């Protein structure tokens, strides 16, 4: 399991625009870089990130080798009701990880 950092407010007022910041520790090996033995290391990147709120997709990103290691993404969402966000990263070599975070809107 890769380490993730997810930052969003625990509580919000209805109508607030909240910032969601996410980071996952991942080497994002580009597939263009030679290793210690001089051979090109195989590509190993996170290719897709999806954020859902209560099963509805709210944000999606397609990532390429030009993303820095430990891909970091921030985006916004309007808080309308309490619920749970889920964050899924998918990538090369069957990489998949899902995390979640809850928000209380009142």
């Amino acid at each position, binding site marked *: 399991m890769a380490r993730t950092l997810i930052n969003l407010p625990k509580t919000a007022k209805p109508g607030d625009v909240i910032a969601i910041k996410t980071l996952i520790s991942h080497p994002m090996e*580009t597939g263009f870089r030679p290793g210690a033995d001089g051979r090109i290391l195989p590509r190993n990147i996170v290719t897709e990130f999806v954020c859902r709120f209560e099963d509805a997709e709210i944000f999606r*990103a*397609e990532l390429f080798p*030009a993303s*820095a*290691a430990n891909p*970091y*993404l921030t985006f916004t969402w*309007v808080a309308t009701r309490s619920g749970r966000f889920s964050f899924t990263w998918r990538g090369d070599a069957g990489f998949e990880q899902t995390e979640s975070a809850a928000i209380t809107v009142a």
Partner: protein
Amino acid sequence: MSTPRTARIRGIDRRRVLAGTAGTVLAVALRPAAAASLPRTETTDSAIRRFAGDSPIRPGRVRLDLPPLVENGNTVPLAVSVESPMTPEDHVRRIGVFNEKNPQPNVVTVHLRPGAGRAQVATRIRLADTQRITAIAEMSDGTYWSASADAIVTLAACLEG
């Protein structure tokens, strides 16, 4: 490189020619050596056409924030925001970011929903060379808007550790 240049400016005095050649040599020397020979899998134009189809892309409405001078190309903060009310009728559908000189032209593509409130995203990218970055936003009415920013990179990403 210096032959056509010398030919073009024949007739100008010798000092100007020498100064020009020296400038070219200096520019080549300052460039990260490895990045110059990177194989390109696709041109930036064709990647942009794959994103936007045949629609016209107009400059404006997009703001791209990138440091103008980058010390380390391995991690460069990048922020894109688009002027949009983000309502169901008028919102940003996608934002694509493209580079000129990395091995692949795509940097990141994000898909937004009207409920996002603001069309504002940030990430960190790699830059293999001094180059221009372009962000293109697709609106819900099918129009495309763009912004570009230049970054000078002193330590290239991708090839070196």
